[in-house]
């Protein structure tokens, strides 16, 4: 979760496994959009001697669809290259890494950024940009925050980029949720499958990702860089004001193990092995048998998977797991037009408010939709639209957004009344949550917003 190890095949390929995608109007620079794609789930900070790094053989991309057809109109590509500057040592570093060009630092990564438009024209925005090292500890990476901030790189036309390790800002009680739908705050209501002698008590949630890191690719660009026609929209009610965003990782199609060198040789065209738009879609709404196919598919083909959104399995399970508390949801047999709108087409103007829209068109495509004409909130709510905050999920996704609770409550029926006035919400719905709030997360007030990664020396403490 939200896409950490969400499908069988990609769970075996961490460097290509997207974990989270964020897209939001930059709160401190409201004429820009920040896009962040996280990869490599569940990094243990003390991950030496071979610390985590991006895959040199993976093509990382962030795509933007600005005309609602589920095809990319603008794509940012990221290619990495790793170098060993001290071939004779077994160490990642032979002394303190005090700067990005430190002579003590052996194993380094550099990357290029390329912008590709719909007509296929590639524009190289940056080359040989250094990643910061992983946060190892006070001897190897003293003053880590300033070391990492030096890796924020300015590009032409007001674009900014960063790629490297960050603290994972996603929060979720994985241990409970995947123990047969246990939500700790209402665990006392769980049927416990009538296991003799077992009784669960209500308890606060546990953040299973606390103190874990990820590798982030963050890019901040002017709104005009991704808007249709290169013009920043001003009317949030118009469909053309919203864009769809997703990230993919691709590998070359043919792989042959080269035993002469001890590595894989890749040949052929790049093919997609990982995809992420809205959080939790492949994780929770796509059947296990189709998750790998979903990862290899483009958004414009998501009609094939739409049944899992219109009839979510989890909604049917809630009244079984929590008997009698979700009777109205259990009795609701219509396709879930609310979830289809939130996840596959965007929410048309007028459904929630006249000026609120994430609608991109009739094409069903899982994309994280962001209305470019809705400004950042002055007092953001982590509950996004459920908290009355038009600038939060599902209008894009900020690093503070509690997407697990928002989506759990949406699946449990809290958004049905927006599209079906006859539906009465179950009283228990307000308590549907994994109990994590994101309190205590390490975040930054400006780009790249995700906090300093946990250091290997100090974690676990």
């Amino acid at each position: 979760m939200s896409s950490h190890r969400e499908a069988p095949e990609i769970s075996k390929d961490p460097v290509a496994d997207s974990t989270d995608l964020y897209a939001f109007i930059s709160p401190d620079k409201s004429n820009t959009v920040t896009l962040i794609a996280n990869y490599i789930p569940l990094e243990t900070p003390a991950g030496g001697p071979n610390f985590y790094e991006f895959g040199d053989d993976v093509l990382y991309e962030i795509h933007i669809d600005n005309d609602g057809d589920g095809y990319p109109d603008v794509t940012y590509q990221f290619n990495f290259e790793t170098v060993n500057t001290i071939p004779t040592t077994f160490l990642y570093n032979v002394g303190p890494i005090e700067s990005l060009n430190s002579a003590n630092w052996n194993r380094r990564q550099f990357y290029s950024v390329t912008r590709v438009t719909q007509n296929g024209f590639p524009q190289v925005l940056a080359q040989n940009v250094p990643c910061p090292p992983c946060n190892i500890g006070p001897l190897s990476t003293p003053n880590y925050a300033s070391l990492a901030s030096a890796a924020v790189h300015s590009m032409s036309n007001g674009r900014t980029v960063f790629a490297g390790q960050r603290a994972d800002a996603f929060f979720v009680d994985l241990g409970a949720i995947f123990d047969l739908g246990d939500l700790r705050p209402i665990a006392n209501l769980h049927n416990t499958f009538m296991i003799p002698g077992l009784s669960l008590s209500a308890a606060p949630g546990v953040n299973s990702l606390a103190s874990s890191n990820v590798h982030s690719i963050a890019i901040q660009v002017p709104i005009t860089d991704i808007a249709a026609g290169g013009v920043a929209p001003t009317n949030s009610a118009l469909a053309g004001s919203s864009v769809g965003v997703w990230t993919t990782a691709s590998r070359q199609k043919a792989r042959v193990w080269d035993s002469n060198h001890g590595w894989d040789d890749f040949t052929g065209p790049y093919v997609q092995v990982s995809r992420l738009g809205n959080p939790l879609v492949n994780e929770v709404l796509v059947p296990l048998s189709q998750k790998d196919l979903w990862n290899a598919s483009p958004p414009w083909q998501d009609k094939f998977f739409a049944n899992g959104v219109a009839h979510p399995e989890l909604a049917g399970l809630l009244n079984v797991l929590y008997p009698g508390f979700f009777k109205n949801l259990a009795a609701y047999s219509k396709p879930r037009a609310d979830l289809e709108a939130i996840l596959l087409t965007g929410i048309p103007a007028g459904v929630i408010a006249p000026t609120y829209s994430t609608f991109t068109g009739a094409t069903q495509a899982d994309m994280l939709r962001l209305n470019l004409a809705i400004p950042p909130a002055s007092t953001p709510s982590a509950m996004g639209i459920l908290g009355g905050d038009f600038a939060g999920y599902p209008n894009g996704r900020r690093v503070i957004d509690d997407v697990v609770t928002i989506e759990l409550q949406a699946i449990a029926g809290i958004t049905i009344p927006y599209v079906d006035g006859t539906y009465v919400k179950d009283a228990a719905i307000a308590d549907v949550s994994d109990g994590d709030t994101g309190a205590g997360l390490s975040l930054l007030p400006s780009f790249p917003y995700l906090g300093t990664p946990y250091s290997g020396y100090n974690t676990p403490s």
Partner: protein
Amino acid sequence: MQEVSRRVFFKRAGGAAAVVAVGTSIAVSPAILAGASAGAATPKEAAISPQDDLRVGEHLVARVKNARTGEINLFIGQKEVTIHDRKIAARLIRAAR
């Protein structure tokens, strides 16, 4: 000190492709397609024309997908080409067995 990346190291160390079989995938040398055995290099191979040779660090992977139709997927660089040639497919299978 000179930096050594994986790609640069490979380019320095690499030459023509090795013959490796993985399932029904076979990395082939041009000699096999020309009908020669998969054994050691011959004078004929050494005299191969530049346009038929692999570039430094490059290799070609062939995947015989269907022997009866002769469908073969060829991977080289960042390209994939599909050909249909039952004779070549049969020759590859014989060479690999």
